[in-house]
């Protein structure tokens, strides 16, 4: 199998030495949506020794347009993204270790999850999770690369905590965006371009090169490109990456937690503490309120009140058909209980 990486080894900045370094590295990818899939495939084929990919979601038809690791069969059988990605990546490269984790990446568990990782990749679609990545990366002093895309454009920024500005240095609180994948859409080429910049920076770092300190913006449809050197924006008093960091996004919050899912007309609701839920007990309770129900080993799906619930066995629930967080909380309390 020595031929496998021959072309990459002929690329002078990597070479056989860099290739050998890659084999001993562990990359942790947060999110197995469009950016997560694209990064995971490139790094798997590049021969990164260990890849972990975590995602809270399952595969739907609307994912197939750009989430390259998934098939129609995966969507039809409601497979979790984590397990489908793991299977597909292992089939691409059996020489490396691949692990998929079907969980949410969140403050309480982030530090334990990323233990031992050399690099983190942002494959998420929301800033809440990105700020958790940002805090945990700063806490364990591991670099990561932010990537975001929308419509036909994308933005990428590598972050070396304590050395280059972190996300919190640049944005002091969660941005309220006016546009999302839901309202303005996204095309596959924008995903590929954004992920390519992310993976390239990751390969640089893993093979001993310096990553760029420029934030890059590119529009693959409008053929626009911009980059800004942001090294002067490091905040010496940053709550996330300075010497006196308090990692505010790693702090727990009490009560039900909710999250809007980008482009899905969906709210996720979950209890403060995850536990094991009996899906069969739940489905027997729900027989009184709905006759549209489907169940597999990992989740239970049912329709009620013009919305569709998908309940995972750890109690985490997706409510499709609403963007109203308060309404979603009420529905959760009404049909699942909290």
């Amino acid at each position: 199998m020595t031929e496998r990486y021959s072309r990459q080894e002929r690329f002078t900045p990597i070479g056989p030495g860099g290739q050998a370094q890659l084999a001993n590295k562990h990359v942790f990818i947060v999110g197995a949506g469009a950016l997560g899939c694209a990064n995971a495939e490139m790094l798997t084929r590049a021969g990164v020794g260990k890849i972990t990919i975590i995602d809270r979601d399952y595969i739907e038809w609307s994912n197939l347009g750009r989430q390259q690791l998934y098939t129609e069969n995966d969507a039809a059988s409601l497979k979790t993204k984590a397990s489908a990605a793991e299977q597909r990546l292992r089939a691409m490269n059996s020489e490396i270790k691949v692990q998929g984790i079907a969980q949410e990446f969140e403050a309480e568990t982030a530090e334990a999850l990323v233990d031992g990782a050399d690099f983190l990749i942002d494959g998420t679609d929301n800033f809440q999770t990105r700020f958790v990545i940002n805090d945990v990366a700063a806490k364990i002093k591991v670099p990561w690369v932010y990537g975001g895309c929308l419509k036909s454009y994308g933005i990428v920024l590598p972050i070396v905590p304590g050395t280059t500005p972190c996300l919190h240095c640049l944005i002091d609180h969660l941005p309220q965006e006016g546009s999302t994948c839901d309202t303005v859409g996204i095309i596959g080429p924008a995903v590929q371009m954004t992920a390519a910049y992310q993976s390239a920076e990751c390969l640089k770092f893993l093979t001993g090169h310096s990553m760029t300190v420029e934030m890059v913006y590119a529009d693959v449809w409008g053929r626009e490109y911009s980059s800004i050197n942001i090294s002067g924006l490091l905040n010496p008093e940053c709550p996330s990456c300075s010497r006196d960091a308090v990692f505010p996004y790693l702090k727990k919050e009490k009560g039900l937690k909710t999250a809007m899912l980008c482009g899905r007309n969906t709210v996720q609701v979950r209890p403060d503490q995850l536990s094991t839920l009996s899906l069969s007990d739940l489905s027997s309770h729900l027989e009184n309120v709905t006759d549209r129900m489907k169940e597999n080993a990992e989740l239970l799906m049912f329709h009620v009140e013009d919305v569709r619930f998908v309940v995972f066995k750890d109690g985490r629930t997706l409510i499709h058909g609403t963007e109203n967080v308060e309404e979603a909380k009420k529905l959760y309390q009404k049909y699942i209980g909290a």
Partner: protein
Amino acid sequence: MNILVNGRTLDFPNEKATIAELLESYQIQKKIAVVEHNKQIVKKTDYEHTKLADGDHVEIVHFVGGG
């Protein structure tokens, strides 16, 4: 006046425009963008009173949440 924004020439009708007005024309909120004006990063608090002139180079990179 003509301003070079992200490498593209823009004919901006307002001759006394500021960075804030330029961002507004792109519908970009100042809290989620980084702006470079003639190779210097402009602080958010200076957007309102940084005036643009003909031939200026501006780079705008704004944060995006999707993925």
